[in-house]
């Protein structure tokens, strides 16, 4: 590590003998600006150019509000389901030894590697009324494909690895002696898990929830096949952006995109605050 400069004055960077700072930082910033920052600020600028009344009219349009509700609502439900099952999967993978563990472990990353369109058509065929699972659910009166429930199923698929991969390393790090100490002091296994282990895992679980949720809100490819895309019922916000674009209604597309970005950032901020709080509370 470099030592701090002798004079404590403000410096952009700590001096170093390693060359290439200007070149690499300059290139990185230029590339970042061209690819990410200019296009994104273009979105914000176009949205600002709309003016407050126009923006508000689009934002309060019933179809927009409904699409945003559906996107955020289904993403929250799917992330909650993933928190429960993702934590169980992570626990089983770390703590238990069983044949095929390595394969299951690798499988968890499938949603990262499988293109969303492929996941979309596969899940739709699976849950369609005549599909492998859909045909079993139909007599029970449960409709998954072409309904909001289908959106939740797609988002569960997409979000699972986010929870498993955030919680798994933390479970690996748990010191078994803590559990032994709790047991020695007379705690039941249930108490050890809920009172000793869970508080330590809570920040990771919240992070996993946040990541799965953020991904779910913006997800498009896997959802549009299974959702049925009925306005006011199963039409997600990203799809509404695409529809507005195809209608050459750039103003509406821009406004909805800006609202989505703003809402996601607010949600992530809130979750970050919860995380900071739980870290402070539980160490």
């Amino acid at each position, binding site marked *: *590590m470099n030592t701090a400069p002798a004079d404590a004055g403000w410096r952009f*960077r*700590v001096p*170093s003998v*390693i*060359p*290439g*700072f200007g070149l690499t930082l300059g*290139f*990185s910033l230029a*590339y*970042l600006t061209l*690819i*990410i*920052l*200019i*296009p*994104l600020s*273009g*979105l914000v600028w176009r949205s600002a150019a709309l003016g407050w009344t126009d923006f508000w009219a689009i934002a309060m349009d019933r179809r927009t509000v409904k699409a945003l509700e559906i996107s955020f609502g289904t993403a929250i439900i799917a992330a909650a389901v993933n928190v429960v*099952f993702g934590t*169980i999967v992570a*626990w*089983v993978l770390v*703590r*238990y030894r*069983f044949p095929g563990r390595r394969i299951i472990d*690798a*499988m968890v*990353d*499938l949603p*990262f*590697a*499988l*293109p*969303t*369109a*492929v*996941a979309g058509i596969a899940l739709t065929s*699976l849950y369609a009324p005549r599909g492998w699972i859909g045909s079993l659910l139909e007599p029970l009166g449960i409709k998954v494909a072409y309904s909001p429930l289908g959106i939740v199923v797609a988002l569960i*698929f997409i979000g699972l*690895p986010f929870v498993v*991969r955030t919680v798994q390393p933390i479970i690996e790090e748990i010191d078994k002696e803590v*559990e*032994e100490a709790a*047991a020695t002091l007379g705690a039941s*296994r249930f108490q050890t898990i809920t009172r000793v282990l869970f508080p330590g895992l809570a920040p990771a679980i919240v992070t996993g929830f946040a990541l799965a949720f*953020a991904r779910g809100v*913006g*997800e*498009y490819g896997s959802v549009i*096949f299974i959702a049925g895309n009925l306005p006011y019922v199963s039409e997600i916000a*990203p799809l509404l*952006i695409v529809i507005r*674009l195809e209608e050459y209604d*750039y103003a509406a*597309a821009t406004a909805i*995109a800006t609202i*989505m970005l703003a809402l996601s*950032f607010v949600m992530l901020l809130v979750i970050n605050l919860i995380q900071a709080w739980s870290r402070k509370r539980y160490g």
Partner: protein
Amino acid sequence: MADFVSTASLHAEKNRATATTESRATRWVLLALAFGFIALFLLLPLILVFAEALKRGVGPYLEALGDSDTLSAIRLTLLVAAISVPLNLIFGIAAAWAIAKFEFKGKAFLITLIDLPFSVSPVISGLVYVLLFGSSSLLGPWLKSYGIEILFAVPGIVLATVFVTFPFVARELIPLMQEQGTGDEEAALSLGANGWQAFWYVTLPNIKWGLLYGVLLCNARAMGEFGAVSVVSGHIRGLTNTMPLHVEILYNEYNAVAAFAVASLLAGLALVTLVLKTILEIHYGHAIAGSRGH
């Protein structure tokens, strides 16, 4: 099974055996839940892709893959990945070098900006380029007057792909190079190597597995991206259709065998990616910092 359940009446020896694990019944329930969930949500969709693709036998499957529109979609997907992955690879190395080897103000903010594309919906990633280069933008008419096509053409697809795969290599390399520190490079420099030599002979060998890991993930996403590419592509068959977009077109035409045939190639790519990724994790886990999770 009851004798395995830990109760206060069991004596110390047996109680200790279950002090840091669950009762046998609980273990079975948890295992069954985990297996059931993975089978239902991950395994079944994967099996279904291949089952549907081969539903009418190998002949129609191969016929669907030999279709000229399918072949041009495959070519375009390979082309787009061949351009966007190296671009993000170079960026990833440069950004990781600047961030990991030096201490400067605003570093944390820069890392946040690099991660930004992960929290943007793919549709929005495509939309920003439509707004930038579309006919309603400032640049659009100017580009048109020079006959430069970006939207609904290959450059737009490449740009959208670069946007969504932007962080992959960088975020693999940054923690890895931060962990490795600057000692090796300083030694090389003090022995008379110049900057390029230090990078080429010292840094690169140190980071090669992490680099490969990042490239693997970047490539999988580049070839599979749907939302962002869908917005900028224009869906012109045989011209601006990538494999995922072609899957959608075939599926919407109720040509299920062909749709799943193309999908099976992408699923195959995903499986190869997972196998290589697992091999890298098993053999070079120590050389891939933050080897888990994205």
